[in-house]
């Protein structure tokens, strides 16, 4: 009877143990995952591997160059080999994680009849206009015409010519190694007209480690979808000066054509204002020698701040604002000159501030004071002013003066103040910069998601990320195949999508719900559930160990 009772209790004990084990198993296998799943922050799947792949992206920038040989440019037997293609590839050494390779793909061919005819004309400008008509060249591509060594198209001492459009002319040579020599000359011209290390270094200035040149490279505005340009006339002394400027006419005549030429880069809006009683933040020093006032170079940084609070245009715009100020000094402080670092007056009486804009001091003609009583009517010589402002505008957009190879004839600027290949250079730079920005944004988003676990990624944010990744890849492909225009559009899209994803407000929705609080809230559930399970598991464990040890001892 007792044995049966003991057997029954044993059975009961085993059943209890089994029940405890099942409880533990259900809680761990079913309960925990369900709880985890239901309290988890929503995160749509993201292409992490592709994003990390972007970092190691190899950018291959291809410049398609068509090289056209006229009849007497190279020896006859060399002419027989045409057409063929030569590729000149070079890695651009930058301290940047992306490898950038520059690839000039030269397609050599013989001149067509109409090209021969055009190049046999008297002057290079004439030849250019006849050549330009039939076909419009794609952005980023170049055409180089090789003319005969003794052609009178160029002055005798010049070896090459760079035109305002995407064309150049190079003298040929009658030599055994003709293709090699000409090839080198072509590369020289092509580098002046398109990609150089400087352009790319300036474009990536924000992403590169600081060096001594970086302040100069950081002058251009950052790439953006649009820009706002504000012209302000500062008249601190309306009692003595009644200043009038024809800014509408000036913008129509000089600024608009330039901006229209730049329209591929972004949207521009232009506005103007006149501010009275707006003074510079620095008191000019008096120079008794010339009885004039001057602003020293070291005080120029302090000039801008007090004025900026009154400009007020950046508050109303989404885009970066470029300010151009024309300052007519007070009667008490005129004439006013700006001195450079060596103490010599600056010829233009103007200076610019990187990524901000430019200031020009406009002195009133002293003769005007004698003629009439105050206030003096001042008509601003707008051509002189716009000359300076346009030069500053070019600098602020990063259109540097090109490095012309030796013995090269250089055509004057077009009426819009921008050459087609300068625009191409800007587009190359902006595409690379956009790609770098988009990759950085995507990488930091991925890093952030890894670090902070309760950032929500909604489906629409995820789709923006996918779009951005695809756009970066597309832009890289288009760059590699030499389609600059579509590459630029894709790179812009990449920046827009990546920033829209990064700055989406839905990312922050649960940021105030940290993990430790989540666990604290569920303690009333976890503690009473976990304690009995753990205790019985410990008990089971101890008992089994005891029952294992017992047989050993008896043996």
């Amino acid at each position, binding site marked *: 009877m007792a044995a049966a009772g003991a057997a029954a209790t044993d059975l009961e004990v085993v059943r209890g143990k089994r029940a405890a084990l099942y409880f533990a198993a259900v809680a761990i296998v079913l309960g925990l995952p369900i709880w985890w799943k239901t309290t988890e922050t929503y995160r749509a799947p993201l292409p992490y591997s592709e994003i990390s792949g972007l970092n190691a992206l190899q950018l291959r920038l291809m410049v398609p160059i068509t090289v056209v040989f006229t009849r007497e440019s190279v020896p006859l037997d060399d002419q027989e080999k045409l057409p063929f293609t030569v590729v000149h590839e070079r890695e651009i050494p930058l301290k940047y994680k992306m490898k950038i390779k520059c690839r000039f793909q030269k397609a050599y061919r013989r001149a067509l009849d109409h090209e021969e005819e055009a190049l046999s004309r008297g002057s290079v400008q004439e030849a250019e206009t006849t050549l330009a008509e039939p076909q419009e060249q794609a952005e980023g591509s170049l055409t180089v015409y090789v003319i005969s060594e003794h052609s009178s198209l160029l002055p005798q001492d010049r070896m090459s010519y760079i035109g305002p459009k995407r064309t150049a002319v190079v003298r040929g040579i009658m030599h055994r190694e003709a293709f090699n020599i000409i090839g080198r000359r072509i590369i020289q011209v092509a580098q002046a007209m398109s990609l150089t290390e400087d352009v790319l270094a300036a474009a990536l200035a924000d992403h590169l480690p600081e060096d001594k040149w970086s302040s100069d490279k950081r002058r251009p505005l950052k790439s953006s979808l649009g820009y706002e340009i504000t012209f302000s006339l500062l008249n601190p002394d309306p009692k003595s000066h009644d200043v009038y400027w*024809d800014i509408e006419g000036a913008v129509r005549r000089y600024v608009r054509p330039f901006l229209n030429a730049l329209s591929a880069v972004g949207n521009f809006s232009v506005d103007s204002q006149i501010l*009275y009683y707006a003074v510079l933040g620095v008191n000019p020093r008096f120079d008794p020698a010339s009885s004039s006032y001057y602003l020293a170079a070291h005080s120029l940084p302090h000039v801008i701040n007090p004025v900026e609070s009154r400009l007020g245009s950046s508050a109303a715009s989404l885009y970066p604002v470029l300010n151009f100020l024309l300052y007519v000094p007070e009667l008490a402080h005129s004439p006013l000159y700006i001195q450079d670092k060596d103490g010599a007056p600056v010829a233009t009486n103007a200076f610019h501030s990187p990524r901000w804009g430019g200031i020009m001091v406009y002195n009133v003609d002293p003769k005007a004071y004698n003629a009439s009583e105050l206030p003096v009517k001042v008509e601003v010589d707008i051509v002189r002013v716009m000359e300076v402002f346009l030069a500053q505008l070019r600098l602020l957009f990063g259109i540097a003066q090109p490095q012309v190879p030796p013995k090269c004839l250089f055509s004057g600027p077009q009426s819009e103040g921008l050459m087609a290949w300068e625009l191409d250079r800007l587009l190359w730079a902006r595409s690379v910069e956009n790609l770098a920005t988009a990759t950085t944004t995507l990488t930091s988003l991925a890093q952030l998601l890894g670090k902070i676990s309760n950032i929500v990624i909604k489906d629409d944010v995820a789709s923006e990320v996918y779009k951005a990744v695809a756009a970066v890849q597309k832009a890289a492909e288009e760059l590699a195949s030499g389609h600059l225009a579509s590459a630029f559009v894709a790179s812009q899209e990449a920046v827009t999508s990546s920033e829209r994803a990064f700055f989406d407000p839905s990312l922050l929705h649960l940021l105030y719900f940290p993990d430790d609080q989540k666990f604290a809230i569920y303690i009333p559930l976890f503690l009473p559930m976990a304690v009995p399970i753990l205790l019985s598991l410990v008990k089971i464990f101890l008992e089994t160990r005891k029952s294992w040890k017992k047989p050993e001892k008896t043996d």
Partner: protein
Amino acid sequence: MAAAVPLAVLALLLLGPGGWGYAEPLRDSLREELVITPLPSGDVAATFQFRTRWDSDLLQEEGTDHYFLRYAVLPREVVCTENLTPWKKLLPCSSKAGLSVLLKADRLFHTSYHSQAVHIRPVCRNARCTSVSWELRQTLSVVFDAFVTGQGKKDWSLFRMFSRTLTEPCPLASESRVYVDITSSSQDNETLEVNPPPLTTYQDVILGTRKTYAVYDLLDMAVISSSRNLNIQLKWKRPLENEAPPVPFLHAQRYVSGYGLQKGELSTLLYNTHPYRAFPVLLLDTVPWYLRLYVHTLTITSKGKENKPSYIHYQPAQDRLQPHLLEMLIQLPANSVSKVSIQFERALLKWTEYTPDPNHGFYVSPSVISALVPSMVAAKPVDWEESPLFSSLFPVSDSSSYFVRLYTEPLLVSLPTPDFSMPYNVICLTCTVVAVCYGSFYNLLTRTFHIEEPSTGGLAKRLANLIRRARGVPPL
């Protein structure tokens, strides 16, 4: 940071086509004025008006498309000097010359009343309105409590109010004047004295009453030159008899009534104190969507009788999209109080839609009352351009009435606020309940139950055995 610019050779391109257009330079025209009105209570009201006007060909298309007319209102905003700074930036002379010198923030914001406005509108340049100018009108009204700060005296001066005096006119202004209301002095010459004595006076009918103003023209050299600054002072020679302040013909009041957090009632009282003329008013109300209006409860009563509005426009609200819009034309009988009331129900918001301080309540924007109020004194129609700014914002079209627009006070309505810690409480409670159930269930399933044989028994058994032994009976 800044560097001198090496200038590129751009002269060539700049000498582009076209010559110089020697058109007469257009310049913005600026008029500014300050109106000082001593109030019967001893307070002083000062109103600045600045009008900038410029010609523009922006508005070439035909007028305003009223389909896109927008109305928006922010019922409450705490004013501070940050409201004055950007406002002052719009003035051509900033705060450096002219009347704007007096705009000193620490004085203007220590007043008992402060009202600041910007109006921008197109103005026809000729009778047929073929071209327009834009007008930017900035007004600032403050009421100084001169009686209390002046130790019981009602005298004031510019310096005492603004701690500044006027020194020079704004060189850009075509007109710069100070008007001082001396109506009570013109009736009998003994009550007050203005110093320096005005060179000219100006009479006009303003809001239905005849007023006399002393005029100081800053552009007139004689006004400032005597002492290089102008500090207008006013002295009361004889205290005024305690006359009741004149009651305006039209005024209004608004309040919310009802108890509990479910229903309520919005009431607007419109007072017409004109002794014998009835006139219509236009009442515009925008009510946020979270107050659900019951339009069938809209009642308008005047003098105990129902008053039917001659025109009603109602646009119902859409949740989270647009507020209720209610516009009515109501005839106000002479010498009466009309009550417009409408009931509403308070809606529940989503818990993220509540403001950071939800128990403070939600503001309801004021209603706007516009009316042509009949005038007691016939005003003669004057040239609009010539008359002072303070009388020309709403031009008088008809000599027997004047235009008034009133804003009632904004209302504060409390909405039912949830317990914001509720999600936490719910989670905790359910967790506890689940844990209790689970605990007993767990115990039931995992514990082993023995049937235990009683070994020795309790105290009662021992006692029984003792008795049994004594009796000689075998123990239990």
